[in-house]
C-alpha cells in the first residue's frame, strides 16, 4: 500500500515536472546536435591525418596489457605454490611430514675419484 502511495506521489511530481523535463531534453538535444557537428568535422580531419578516432585509444590498449600481465602473474604464482606443496606431503592427521619414497630411495652415485676432503673416507655413513 505504501509503495502504491509512493508511486502515486512520484506520478504527481513527474506530471508537474514533465513540461520542464521535456524542455530540458529538447535544449540538451540542440546543444548535443552542435557538439555532434563539431565532433564529426573534427573526426573527419583526424581521420585524414591518420589519427585514431575510435573509442579504444592507446590508453585502453595499455590498460588491457597491464591487466593481462597481472592475470598471468597471479596464475604463475598459484602454479608455483601448488608445485611446492606437491613436493612435501603433510600428514595432518598424525602431524608428521612424510618425505616421498622416491626422494628417500635416491642414492648418491659412487665417485670415481678419491675425495681427500673427508680424509679419504668415501663411506657415506
Amino acid at each position, binding site marked *: 500500500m505504501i509503495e502504491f502511495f509512493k*508511486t502515486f506521489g512520484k506520478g504527481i511530481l513527474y506530471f508537474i515536472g514533465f513540461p520542464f523535463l521535456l524542455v530540458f531534453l529538447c535544449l*540538451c538535444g540542440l546543444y548535443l546536435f552542435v557538439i555532434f557537428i563539431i565532433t564529426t568535422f573534427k573526426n573527419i580531419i583526424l581521420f585524414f591525418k591518420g589519427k585514431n578516432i575510435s573509442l579504444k585509444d592507446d590508453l585502453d590498449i595499455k590498460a588491457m596489457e597491464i*591487466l593481462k600481465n597481472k592475470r598471468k602473474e597471479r596464475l604463475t604464482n598459484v602454479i608455483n605454490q601448488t608445485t611446492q606443496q606437491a613436493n612435501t606431503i603433510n600428514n595432518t592427521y598424525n602431524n608428521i611430514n612424510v618425505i616421498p619414497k622416491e626422494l628417500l630411495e635416491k642414492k648418491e652415485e659412487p665417485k670415481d675419484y678419491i675425495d681427500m676432503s673427508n680424509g679419504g673416507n668415501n663411506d657415506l655413513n
Partner: protein
Amino acid sequence: MILTNINILNKFFDSTWKVVLVLLIIIIAFFALFGLIGTLIEKVMYIQGKKVDKFMSPLILSGLVNDEKDFIKISKRKSTLYFVKTSIIPILLILIGLLIFIIYHSIDNEWNESIFNDQTGIGTLFFTWDFSEFSYVPPLGFANIKLQNTPHFLTSIECLNYFIFLFIFTGLVWYLINVQAYISRAIRINKLKNKIFSKDLDNVDLSTLFDLDKLNDNSNNPNLPSNTN
C-alpha cells in the same frame, strides 16, 4: 411535496457521489500510471548510465587513471564519442525525411501542405472529429461532435507525406533516446567521481590503515570472556 423533494435530493446526491468516486479513481489511476512510467524511465536511465563503468573499469583497475580530473576528462570524451557514433543513423534518417520533403514540394510547389492533416497527411490513417459545434450536456454528456475522417490510405503522390513523417519521427525519437542516454552517463560520471575519488573518511575502511586488534587489545582484562582452544 416535501417527500418528492427529498426523493429528488437523494437521487441527485446518489448520482453525484458515484460520479465523484469514478472521477477520483480515474485521477488516482492516471497519476499512478505516470509514476510507473517515471520509475521505468529511471531504471532505463540507470542501465544506460552503466556504459560508463564499461568504458572506465580497465583504466581504473590497471591504475592508469587515479586522478579525478583525468577520470572526468577521459569519461566525458568517451561518452561524447559514443553519443556521436550512435546518433549517426537517426540523424541520417531525419536528413532523408527532409530530403524527400524538399524534393516532393519542389516538384508540386505546395510548400504549405501539412504532413499531419486528415486530407494529405498522416491524419488520414486515424478517426478524426470536428469539435467546432461542440456543446456540453450535464453531468458528463457531449453533443454536436461530427466524425470528420475514417481511416484510409492515400494512393496519390501525397502518400510521400507518410514516408516523410515515418523517417523524421523515427529519427527524432531515436535521437532523443540517445540524448537521454548521454544525460544518464553524465549523471553516472558525477556519481562515480564522488565515489571512487571520495575525500570523505566515512567511505574509508579504517581497519586497513591501523591494526585495530592491537589498539583494542583487551587480553589483560579479566572481566571479558576468553576464547580458549
